[in-house]
């Protein structure tokens, strides 16, 4: 029974998300609901064989906390970068930092790199091919060690707990 269910609806969470986004974008009506339900079934059904199965996120409360912290950091970093842009170029001290990673799985690394790109004057540029280092370009680099430990405890540590890796 559950096998049949799995065949018919291989990715229930994805289906639900597709349906919700479809209804949010198109407005709620019976027609849209039917069409949305059909697409929410069809798309995961067709794409499931191609999906690359990733580590699962657990602990919804921690995910929410992570998200809220990220939003707060984005707002603060925006203000900081805006001020930095308005200062003179000569006072700017850009730099590259190699961040030693302690997580290895693809999806958590993607989330970490995206978080780094979205926050305080940092853009993640490249991973080393052994997945041990993340290279980050920093708009204004004051203290390398401080930046590394900040990223470690603000983002990497919570991500390790969320993905339990």
């Amino acid at each position, binding site marked *: 029974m559950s096998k049949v269910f799995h065949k018919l609806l291989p990715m229930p969470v994805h289906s639900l998300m597709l349906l919700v986004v479809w209804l949010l974008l198109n407005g709620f009506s019976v027609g849209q609901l039917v069409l949305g339900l059909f697409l929410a079934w069809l798309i995961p059904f067709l794409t499931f064989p191609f999906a690359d199965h990733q580590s699962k996120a657990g602990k919804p409360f921690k995910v929410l906390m992570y998200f809220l912290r990220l939003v707060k950091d984005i707002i603060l970093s925006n203000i900081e970068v805006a001020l930095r842009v308005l200062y003179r170029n000569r006072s700017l001290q*850009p730099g590259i*930092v*190699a961040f030693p990673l302690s997580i290895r799985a693809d999806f958590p690394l993607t989330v970490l790199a995206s978080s780094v790109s979205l926050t305080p004057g940092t853009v993640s540029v490249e991973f080393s091919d*052994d997945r041990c280092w993340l290279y980050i370009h920093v708009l204004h680099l004051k203290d390398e060690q401080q930046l590394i430990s900040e990223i470690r405890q603000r983002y990497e540590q919570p991500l390790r707990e969320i993905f339990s890796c």
Partner: protein
Amino acid sequence: MSDYLIAALLIVGGLFIFVGSLGLAKLPDFYTRLHAPTKATTLGIGAVLLASVAVTAARDGTLSIHEIVISLFLFITAPVSANMLAKAALHKKVPMCDNTRNQDLKAHMAHQKAPDSE
């Protein structure tokens, strides 16, 4: 009352978008220029979208969700495009400005090697 709120949000949003574009023009090299539009604009666009939510709420009394979906997509795509641009620049060996710290890491970075390797 809601008019003032909407106006304030639009002004803040416009200000941040302006600073982002200014940074794109004035910062010293490609890599630092990457920072201004990916960051300053996320908050700017966020504020404009919030203003849009406030307008619909004040006019129709309903909560519009489109804007939240737009900002979600923006948050997902902005880091990816910044990362691709930075990678392309490294590949093309676009120079960094002279006072960049740890420039010796650039070659390791471009070849995806660990910083302590030869």
